């Protein structure tokens, strides 16, 4: 098992770089798991726009307005400086900023319309339209009550309005499915896994192979009484052991992060899918390792392949947001099918079929086999015996 041991000795020289990728991965995963995640269910839950409200008015009317709007949006606390508001808007920490200027209540009740609400929003966005609608609706109701019922107090009007708002249109969800709670964090964890595992395995497999593929070392190995089959098997075994270890470590962490609300079947599927993808990375690493000449080129290839595939396949950016063309291009990469499977698994219902998911996994395994074959072809092409 000399070669096998050698492989791990070489890897241990690159612990630093490998642990950087692992820690970026684990760090981001941890962060996302701790962040609250969106969920969807069988009842209609209105979308809540993230909104920041700054109230400079002391009137009761403004308070009622805020209470009303807060209930229908997701209020976010940010500090009231231009910079922090601008930042928050840019990064969508809030999508709508409402400022109630001093004297608004009074001006509104007097109907002179001198003091207006001030808003800032992501321009032309649906959330802007939504919050505008909510605000205008409330103000319209208020203006009706104050306009038609003389001497009505703010409190009285607010009570009427709240009463009115208790009635709602009856909303039904078609084919109301019993959606399993979408676990945003878990699916993020497994999405991001594709990036880090690709980077880590490509890096380690190609590094190990490059050391063994060094022409002189290769000649020395070939000249030794070690059988070629055994040599290759030991390399394969080394890669396999490492890859499975990375997979097991990642899944273990995933399980720890997800200790509550687990669904055994979904976890099994996610892990199986991740294992398939791990094999894809191994195959790709095998191919790239044969096609590449220097250590520096490895870093280049690792970065371009892992980051590139992840971006076009919807690892970092939700898949729905990608263009049609890019999705079509991405479907020629294994990452696309991995992401596809992760998305299907995390929206899996108790009685829906897993056929699509298995299909995606099979496609991934197909990619793994194809990369392996390509790698073998390149290896044969540039084997010593073929040298002129």
């Amino acid at each position, binding site marked *: 098992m000399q070669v096998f041991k050698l492989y791990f000795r070489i890897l241990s020289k690159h612990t630093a770089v490998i642990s950087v990728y692992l820690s970026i991965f684990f760090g*981001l995963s941890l962060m996302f798991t701790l962040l609250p995640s969106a969920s969807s269910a069988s009842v209609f839950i*209105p979308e809540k726009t993230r909104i920041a409200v700054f109230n400079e008015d002391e009137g009761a009317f403004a308070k009622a307005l805020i209470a009303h709007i807060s209930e229908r949006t997701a209020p976010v606390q940010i500090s009231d400086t231009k910079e922090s508001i601008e930042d928050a808007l840019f990064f969508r920490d809030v999508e709508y900023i409402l400022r109630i200027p001093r004297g608004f209540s009074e001006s509104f009740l007097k109907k002179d319309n001198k003091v207006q609400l001030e808003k800032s929003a992501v*321009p032309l966005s649906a959330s802007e*339209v939504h919050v505008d609608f909510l605000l205008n609706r409330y103000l319209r109701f208020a203006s009706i009550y104050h*306009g038609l019922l003389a001497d009505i107090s703010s409190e009285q009007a607010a009570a009427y309005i709240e009463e009115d708002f208790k009635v709602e249109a*009856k909303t039904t969800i078609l084919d109301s499915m019993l959606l399993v709670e979408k676990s945003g964090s878990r699916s993020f964890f497994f999405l991001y896994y594709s990036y880090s595992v690709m980077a880590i395995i490509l890096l380690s497999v190609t590094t190990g192979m490059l050391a063994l593929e060094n022409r002189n070392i290769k000649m020395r190995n070939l000249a030794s009484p070690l059988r070629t089959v055994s040599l290759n098997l030991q390399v394969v075994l080394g890669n396999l052991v490492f890859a499975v270890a990375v997979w097991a470590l990642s899944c273990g962490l995933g399980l720890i992060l997800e200790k509550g609300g687990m669904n055994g079947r979904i976890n099994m599927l996610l892990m199986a899918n991740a294992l398939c993808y791990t094999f894809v990375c191994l195959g790709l690493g095998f191919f790239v390792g044969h096609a590449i000449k220097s*250590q520096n*080129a490895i870093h280049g290839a690792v970065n371009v392949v892992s980051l590139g595939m992840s971006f*076009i396949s919807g690892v970092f950016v939700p898949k729905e947001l990608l263009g049609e063309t890019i999705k079509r291009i991405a479907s020629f990469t294994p990452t696309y099918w991995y992401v596809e499977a992760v998305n299907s698994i995390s929206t899996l219902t108790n009685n829906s079929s897993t056929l699509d998911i298995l299909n995606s996994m099979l496609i991934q395994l197909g990619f793994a086999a194809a990369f392996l074959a390509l790698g073998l072809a390149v290896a044969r092409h540039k084997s010593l015996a073929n040298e002129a």
Partner: protein
Amino acid sequence: MFWHLFSYRLRCILRDKQTLFWSAAFPIVLAALFGLAFSNLDSNELFTQIPVAVVDNDAYRQSNAFKSALYSAASGKDALFNPILCTKDEAVALVEEGSVAGSISIGADGEVNILVKETGISQTILKAFGDSFVQLSRAFKTIAETEAQAAHKFASLLANEAAYIKETKLGAEYPNKSVIYFFALISMACLYGSFHGVNAVSSVQANQSHVAARCNMAPVHKLLLFGAQLSAALLVQFISCLLLIVFMKFVIGVQFGPRLFLIIFTCAIGASMGVMLGALVGALLKQRLNLKIGIIISLSMVLTSLAGLQYPNLKYIIHKSLPLLSYVNPAALVTDAFYALYYYEGLERYFINIGLLLGFCAVFLFVVYGVMRRQKYASL
């Protein structure tokens, strides 16, 4: 003499394909991939008129109130809906196939029914509209019960479209989050200038390369030698970054804002920071070149991740909750400088970033100078 050193160094850099790939071509390749991936991203949250199936039943035909409410919500430049009149079965089919956000129908008793397939912002707006209709009906009833004579003014009040809200514009440009991916990518390209920095140092430190030992034997002041190497590296890195920006702006269409001069200036500062960082790594570590490259790549992966390369909000979160971390991360500073140029009207934040970056350059250069000044070595 400077010109001699500089021009030959330039030739060496331009022949060094591998380093050039890293510092110039690789970011452009990634930028192209980003461009492909995000071509659709901006339009996603833009509001487009919501297609709604409206069930054309008896109640609909008889309810003028509903019709006029729908009409006012579906006309004008602020129209919310794009209604399609159809039968109940057709409406269900349209909802099913997803060509409308939902269907809305009014019942004989004035109750409103909404059918959707999923919940999203469009459905939420549709529901708010439906709610608002039934709620207005109830408000009308309430008023009619309390003060019957006022009820006739209801319609005119309803038609009153007083503007209660005025908009205050924030930011100089559209808050387009996806530019952060590109700005972070520029910061990565800047950091990859480190390769040139490392090479510049190793080609004058006698204990790092044979060529450097030979150069040290020439009657040339070492700092002049180093200055020439560094200048060549800076020039190449600056041009690489500039090319990246040109590619982003004119091929991909990334918006940078109108301050052309400052954009180029930022590019120069960022490139300098990268080269100096590399010089620092090169001067402080005596290990093999491969290890240095490994360190630079790892470092730049971490720093650019924190600057939002994979997930732009990470930059925001860090800036909000751990501001110190974003001030000591040169990649975040470069990203933030471009962000501030693009999005802020004022230049205060921009200059804070640039100031810190210049500070970093100065500190790096100072340390490098301290190491370089040493002209004799304990071992070679």
